[in-house]
């Protein structure tokens, strides 16, 4: 494998941002205030949930994008096992980290939402809540595994398998509400029922769009950080080889002498 320099094509030191990420960043900076405006001012209250409904605009998008992020992790993992390329490994790792953040946000916003609507922060009997937590913990484990000192390839392989197995749980989480209807308090697909108000629906779409941009933006940066840090790890490689080779000269005199002795006897 060739060791690339820590420089981008134009010869400048490699940074994690580029023109396109800056564009995405600007979109985010502009988009978030707009979303806040729509979420808190323009969109109406819910009949039953009152102002609490506004959590919909963040809760549901982060939930969806945590699925997507873990899905990308699984894809990266599969491709890693197939192609053994560092690119896929870094992708899987980056996406898992973002996925854990989004999944954590889902749990937090969900809990906050649950307080006024269900009168409880958390409900152990609820399948969706518990399976979301399970998914969160699986990927916490994934990240813990990535911290373990081991050779990059071994670690990547092990992590890839944990990532794939973890993702198998996602459909279970997603379907859990339909499968075990009687053991959940959680909302079923209220979006596809078509009984949401137009503006609510629009704001929700806006929230999803913003989250999509945020995901892509975070991914690109996190990926580059990951890539650069492995690059950085191999930076001293040439020097280390030279230093190690020089160890031989230290022993040169004594060692060859001994070998000759061995021959003579």
């Amino acid at each position: 494998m060739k060791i690339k320099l820590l420089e981008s094509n134009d010869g400048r030191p490699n940074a994690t941002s580029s023109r396109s990420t800056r564009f995405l960043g600007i979109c985010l900076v502009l988009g978030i205030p707009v979303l806040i405006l729509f979420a808190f001012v323009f969109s109406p209250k819910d009949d039953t949930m009152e102002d609490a409904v506004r959590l919909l605009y963040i809760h549901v998008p982060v939930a969806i994008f945590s699925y997507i992020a873990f899905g990308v992790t699984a894809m990266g993992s599969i491709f890693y096992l197939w192609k053994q390329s560092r690119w896929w490994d870094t992708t899987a790792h980056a996406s898992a980290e973002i996925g854990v953040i989004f999944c954590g946000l889902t749990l937090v916003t969900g809990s906050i939402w649950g307080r006024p609507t269900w009168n409880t922060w958390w409900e152990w009997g609820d399948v969706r809540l518990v399976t979301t937590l399970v998914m969160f913990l699986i990927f916490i484990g994934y990240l813990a595994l990535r911290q373990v000192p081991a050779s990059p390839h071994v670690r990547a392989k092990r992590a890839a398998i944990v990532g794939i197995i973890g993702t198998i749980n996602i459909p279970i989480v997603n379907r859990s509400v339909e499968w075990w209807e009687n053991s959940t308090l959680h909302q079923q697909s209220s979006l596809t029922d078509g009984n949401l108000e137009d503006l609510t629906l629009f704001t929700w779409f806006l929230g999803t769009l913003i989250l999509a941009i945020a995901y892509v933006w975070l991914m690109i940066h996190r990926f580059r950080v990951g890539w650069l840090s492995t690059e950085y790890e191999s930076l001293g490689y040439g020097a280390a080889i030279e230093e190690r080779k020089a160890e031989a000269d230290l022993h040169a005199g004594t060692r060859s002498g001994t070998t000759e002795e061995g021959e003579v006897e």
Partner: protein
Amino acid sequence: MEFRDAWSIALKDLRIELRSRILMNQIAPYTLLIVVLFGFALDANTQTLRDTGPGLFWVAVLLIALLAIQRAVKIEEDDAARERMLLTPVHSPSVFLGKSIALFIQLFALEILLFFVMLALFDLSVEDPLLIFLSAVLATIGIASSGTLYGVIAAGVGVRETLLPILLLPVIAPIAIGATRAFGDSFGRVDADGWAWLGLLSVFAVVYTVLGMLAYGQLVEDA
């Protein structure tokens, strides 16, 4: 993959377990202790205990499984037997299968013991023995195969003792939940549809066994 190899490996693991008598002298009493411990934690009357019986049973099984898996990994690691195995013509699916079978047998034996203890202590009555039996078998297959797989993932990193629970528990927790519901139904306590949960358990059992046979080789390759 040769089944004969798998069987030799399973026998070897079982023989080691019997030799060190961990199963009878140690894990069995530990099992009892866990049940008692939960009694303390709940600090509740028999009725509560009875209702949560199936849950306790499976949590106890999870903890025992962790211990058994740690042991199974340790015996391979202690003197580099894992690397030695790589230098034989044995296919890794056989190794996986062998170690899973040994784990299954040990866990199942303990579950039978635990089951009768709980039955007596918590004053439960079985309404659907077939459902109990099938769900225990399927859940144990799932636990044994995912445990063997994760055991090797956590192996050789020097921090296995603590890494393994973190990786494994969330993965086998859904199995335990499914089995709990199936048990609950068999005891006539929960109005869950036990047979539907059995479906979930068989999915886990199949998925982890197949995945394990595929992935195990990848994992042990780099010693």
